[in-house]
């Protein structure tokens, strides 16, 4: 008989669906976001299939529009935004701060149900004919022109937003009020700092997209003239409101991934992070400055040139804290005793790809260059380097790093290394050619293109195929590890931190007695004063 842990403490579907344990809720999220990830992947597969040839032969133009819209909606709102916070954050934050649970366990469970309800709305929208406005729901596509199921999909996004708000609220209160005795702010793991910054963006940004989507629905249903120029409204106001949330939303995706990388880099270089407080504060800086850059999405939409200059400058400034993180991770790895386990491979992938994604973001923040590459595949490649090369790499790295803790089992390391390699190669083969073809002038969101662009698109589709194998592999070896994997010790990596001091998998209460923390939670180099400023 195994010792009692959160997995075997209670059996049956009801014990999972009515649980208030943050670890079980994290697993509920894991299952549901994995579903949406592969659903979004399916839409991406259809896009890549269509773009294999220059002619529009697989999908009609209208269906192609629906495919990229549903791909964007599902991946952004139902996978990327909840991915790391709702799964890894939910599971780890209480353990990392020495608490028994999040501050509001019932609200945590409710947030999952809200997420599922929003997901059902979006699925209904997809199955009943789809939406063709683009994931941005730009007016007037979404109000006057489109005849598709905009309201259903928009309501799905609206509802899911509240799940995100409640998660952020829960994290903020938990980090403020539930820390173990002695665990001061500057002893917190950087993963927790990153989630604190993410939560700030969630609670400040998400309500704005909620009201915006509600106004779009009001305009469609009640014919109120908010965004429709025919009724006296202003469609550019929609773009301002939308990007006020949706640009910071990129930081909802990337900040938690940065938190994951900060943990992995320390564990596999066997070194305390270089410049702890710089990384901690750079998370906050990204969260705050990230709210002031939305105008760089609207350079060509009639925004005043002076506003454009300001947004351009601030967009450059927001790159500084991101760069600080990259330099600090590099300095952490420098002269560390590096072990190339699979989480570290993902971390290396993240650092490289995020750097490319970030630097090309600076190209786009420059107004002159942006006019040339606006709405081309250059933009598509840029944000996929951030969202896929950055956020998903971080998510997978974190999942591999903490899987022994979550499941209590060890997975096949060779298979994991193979998957990490396939993801890296597949990703670059998919998206690097898009930088080139975008720069050459191929616009996004068309199902046909001139024949001279075919070679790039064939590379892209081939890369996407490799990438999908890399994404499917972990499904198999993670599931396999649950049934056949060796039991994991409490600390399989020799890593530091409170989560590695509790058994794998942790007991329901996390800690038999509340730990008392006397120094920073990461102590890889005890001879130096580290982790504490």
């Amino acid at each position, binding site marked *: 008989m195994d010792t009692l842990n959160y997995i075997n403490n209670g059996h049956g579907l009801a014990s999972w669906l009515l649980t208030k344990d943050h670890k079980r809720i994290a697993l509920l999220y894991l299952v549901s976001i994995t579903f949406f990830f592969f659903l979004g992947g399916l839409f991406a597969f259809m896009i890549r299939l269509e773009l294999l040839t220059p002619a529009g032969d697989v999908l009609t133009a209208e269906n192609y529009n629906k495919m990229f819209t549903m791909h964007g909606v599902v991946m952004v709102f139902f996978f990327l935004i909840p991915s790391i916070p709702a799964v890894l954050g939910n599971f780890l934050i209480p353990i990392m701060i020495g*608490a*028994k*649970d*999040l*501050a*509001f*366990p019932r*609200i945590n469970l409710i947030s999952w149900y809200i997420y599922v309800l929003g997901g059902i709305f979006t699925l209904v929208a997809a199955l009943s004919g789809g939406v063709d406005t683009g994931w941005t729901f730009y007016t007037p596509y979404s109000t006057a022109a489109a005849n598709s199921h905009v309201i259903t999909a928009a309501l799905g996004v609206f509802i899911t937003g509240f799940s995100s*708000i409640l998660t952020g*609220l*829960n994290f*903020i*209160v*938990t980090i*403020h*009020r*539930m*820390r173990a*005795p*002695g*665990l*001061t*702010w500057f002893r917190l793991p950087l993963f927790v700092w990153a989630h604190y910054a993410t939560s700030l963006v969630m*609670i*400040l*940004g*998400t*309500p*704005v997209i*909620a*009201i*915006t989507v509600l*106004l779009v629905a*009001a305009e469609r249903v*009640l*014919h*109120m*003239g*908010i965004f429709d120029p025919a*009724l*006296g*409204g*202003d469609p550019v*106001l929609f773009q*301002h*409101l939308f990007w006020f949330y949706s640009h910071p939303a990129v930081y909802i995706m990337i900040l938690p991934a940065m938190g994951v990388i900060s943990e992995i880099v320390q564990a596999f270089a066997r070194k305390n992070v270089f410049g702890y407080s710089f990384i901690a504060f750079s998370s906050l800086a990204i969260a705050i400055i990230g709210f002031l850059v939305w105008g760089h999405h609207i350079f060509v939409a009639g925004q005043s040139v002076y506003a454009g200059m300001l947004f351009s400058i601030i967009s450059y400034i927001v790159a500084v804290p991101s760069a600080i993180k990259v330099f600090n991770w590099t300095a952490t790895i420098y002269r560390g005793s590096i072990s190339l386990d699979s989480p570290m491979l993902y971390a290396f992938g993240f650092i490289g790809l995020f750097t490319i994604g970030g630097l090309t973001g600076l190209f786009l923040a420059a107004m002159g260059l942006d006019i040339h590459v606006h709405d081309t595949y250059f933009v598509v490649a840029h944000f996929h380097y951030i969202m896929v090369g950055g956020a998903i790499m971080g998510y997978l790295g974190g999942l591999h790093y903490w899987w022994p803790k979550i499941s209590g089992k060890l997975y096949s390391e060779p298979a994991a290394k193979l998957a990490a390699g396939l993801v890296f190669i597949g990703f670059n083969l998919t998206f690097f050619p898009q930088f080139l073809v975008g720069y050459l002038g191929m616009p996004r969101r068309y199902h046909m293109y001139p024949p001279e662009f075919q070679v790039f698109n064939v590379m892209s589709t081939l890369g996407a195929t490799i990438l999908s194998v890399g994404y499917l592999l972990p499904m198999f070896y993670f599931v396999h590890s649950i049934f056949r994997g060796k039991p994991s010790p409490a600390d399989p990596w020799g890593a530091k931190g*409170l989560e590695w*001091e509790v058994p794998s998998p942790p007991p329901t209460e996390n800690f038999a*007695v*509340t*730990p*008392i*923390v*006397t*120094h920073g*939670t990461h*102590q890889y180099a*005890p001879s130096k004063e580290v982790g504490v400023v």
Partner: protein
Amino acid sequence: MSDGYPQAPSVGLPGRVSIQAPGNPHDEQSSAHPHHPKLQHHFDDMGQQAEASTLGMWVFLVTEIMFFGGLFLAYLVYRTQNPMAFQEASAHLSWKLGAFNTAVLIFSSLTMALAVRSAQTSESRGTQVFWLVTTMILGATFLGVKVIEYSEKFAHNNVPGPNFVWDGQYPAGAEIFYSLYFCMTGLHALHMVIGLGIMTVIAIMAWRRQFNTEYFTPVEITGLYWHFVDIVWIFLFPLLYLIGRHYGGH
């Protein structure tokens, strides 16, 4: 650490035990109320639980500010674009009903504060319920006046949409004004209705003698919510009702 964690494992190096717990003032009181029936298992004590709940409500109110903020931004943009139309449209709202409702809401904030106070000082359940019910009656009065105002607008076809009728100079701008008017006051009224629902539950709990000096957080955070709804109206009233006063309204 007084007595809460007798054999807590010390996570760290021997000889460097320096315990400090800023942000955890509850530790000091952990022995004061060890087994309060309302204490949830994952909190150390009632103080920590109460602080978590009030902070949670404050954070929620921040999200509410951002939620209403989108509407206020839309108001700002369209009023700048249609200054005269907004004045003309505003002049057709009854400032007297608006002012009456403002007074009602401010008074309800007073009675709400007294309800929190009566729970905090462990007054009789009759007193606690009296203040809560008074607040609810005032809230219902506000909504009643709102119904009168809305039905007057419906009667004159001043509701935005295909049937919108406007006999003034600026029909297009007036329609936007009334779109915003209905969105903003409608959303505000929805918050009032939700507040009345919450207060019903709180009043029943008060009648069952659940609130006293040791446990009154639910009343307190309901109060926070109610004051927030009140403050939103304090901004809505001048922006919607008073900007047309010098336009020759009634």
